[in-house]
């Protein structure tokens, strides 16, 4: 397939000022590409800069050095062809389910979006809850609203920042399956940040392991488990366990490094 790279990090470094006035290096020389239509999971230890990589792709922040491009264009500003599912709830609390999901089409001044919105409400299984406000929904339902809100705009690139980390384990595996099903019907490029290796392998075509911050690519695995996948069942197969061990062997050193650092210097950053 020659679809070109949907995402390209070229020698990207990013640093932030900490409240104490020192610099915090989140990314150093991050360099990788993602092919269009690929589902890529970024895994790495806590605080390694995974989320920063996503905010650069969305244009919410700019790299300090280097460049980030999406579909061949350098990201300069917030890019509305990108969908973003946040770690914590980012649904609008003053809009009901319908209006939350309709937010994108309305902001984009799309006429006749009613049928589209209703079809997405049905796709994420929220028919009957159109008039509920987010605080009246469970954590899993709120995530479904967030997913539909991002996907209804048919983003060419979907960025997900540990979207299911706040959910309980059971809801999480259900949501993983639902995400797989939704993605298999749209096949947009996905960058999925997680620290849960199981989730990463179950979902992705490719798992990129990042080093303990500042993030660099440590290893790159192709996951050739057959699709369509059922995330809930796949993790008991031999192939899954084998790839799991391979990746874990690489990841665990970085996790140790990050953990040791935390013990030495409790840093201000999350």
């Amino acid at each position, binding site marked *: 397939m020659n679809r070109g790279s949907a995402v390209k990090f070229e020698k990207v470094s990013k640093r932030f000022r900490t409240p104490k006035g020192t610099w915090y290096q989140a990314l150093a020389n991050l360099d990788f590409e993602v092919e269009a239509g690929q589902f890529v999971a970024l895994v790495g230890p806590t605080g390694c800069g995974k989320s920063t990589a996503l905010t650069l792709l969305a244009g919410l922040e700019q790299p300090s050095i280097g460049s980030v491009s999406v579909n061949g264009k350098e990201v300069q500003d917030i890019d*509305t062809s990108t969908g973003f599912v*946040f770690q914590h709830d*980012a649904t609008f609390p003053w809009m009901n389910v319908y209006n939350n999901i309709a937010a994108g089409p309305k902001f984009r001044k799309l006429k006749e979006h009613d049928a589209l919105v209703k079809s997405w409400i049905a796709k994420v299984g929220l028919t009957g809850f159109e008039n509920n406000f987010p605080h009246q929904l469970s954590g899993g339902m709120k995530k479904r609203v967030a997913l539909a809100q991002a996907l209804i705009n048919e983003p060419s690139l979907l960025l997900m920042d540990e979207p299911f980390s706040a959910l309980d384990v059971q809801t999480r595996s259900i949501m993983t399956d639902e995400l797989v099903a939704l993605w298999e019907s749209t096949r947009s490029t996905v960058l999925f940040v997680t620290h849960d290796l199981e989730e990463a392998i179950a979902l992705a075509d490719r798992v990129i392991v990042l080093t303990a911050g500042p993030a660099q690519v440590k290893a790159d695995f192709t996951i050739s488990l057959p699709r369509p996948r059922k995330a809930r069942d796949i993790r008991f197969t031999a192939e899954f366990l084998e790839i799991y061990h391979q990746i874990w062997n690489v990841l665990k050193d970085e996790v140790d490094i990050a953990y040791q650092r935390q013990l030495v210097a409790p840093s201000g950053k999350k």
Partner: protein
Amino acid sequence: MAEKYLTDREIKQKNLKHRVKVHSLQLGLAFLLLGSWQYMADHNILDPFFYGRPTGVLHQLDVWVHNGTAIGSLWVNAWVTFYEATYGFIAGVVLGIIFGVFLARNKTAAEIFAPYIKVSNSIPRVVLGSIFVLWLGLGSVSKVALAFVLVFFPVFFNAFQGTREADNKLISNARLLGASKKDVLRRVIFPSALSWITASMHVSFGFALIGAIVGEFLGAQRGLGLLIATAQGNFNPNGVYAAMVLIAIMALTAEFLITKLENRLLNWRPTQVSGSDL
């Protein structure tokens, strides 16, 4: 040990019982307070010449309603005070919101205006009443102006803070979903600042009434403030209390309407923990 669930009817009855208890105790307390006041005034423990008495207040209200006051019809005077407070309130709320949101969104402007706002906020604003009477005359305009300055600052500060506290993640999300700057302001920032703004509106109507009445004290031709000043000049404490009763009714009505408006605007919020509203 309970053996059966309570039925809906039993729960209702229990709640009703509780409400009856609360209301009868409230009434009892009112009777006790007003009754002891009346008793002490009747037996000259409190000098009714200075302290008045409840029946005197009722009589005063009756006279005002039926015969009018020394400065004209009661309704005209009440209405004047009400609209002065209301105009000042509306102007203060609208401009407070506009300035608050604008300065919170515009860092440079906020830095420029910060010392001016601090200085003007530190002036005891009631003092401005005298200046407004000098500038704007004895008519309603000077009272509206005083009510306005009293309302403006609390609303302004709350709108400013509410806007600042708007969740950055929600703003990012809206922009990624395709929202224009105007959309972000209308659909994200304003709704999230709204609970701050409505909170300030509750206290502000009280301030607006203070502005109107103090303005009328300082010099006016009509209004409840003038009515109070006149009663005070005539050593008529019952008149002062009677005007206070009218003002309280006005404030409570406004509070009721503001709460209605708030519930309408903020219907998306989780229902507050149940308990008594103060």
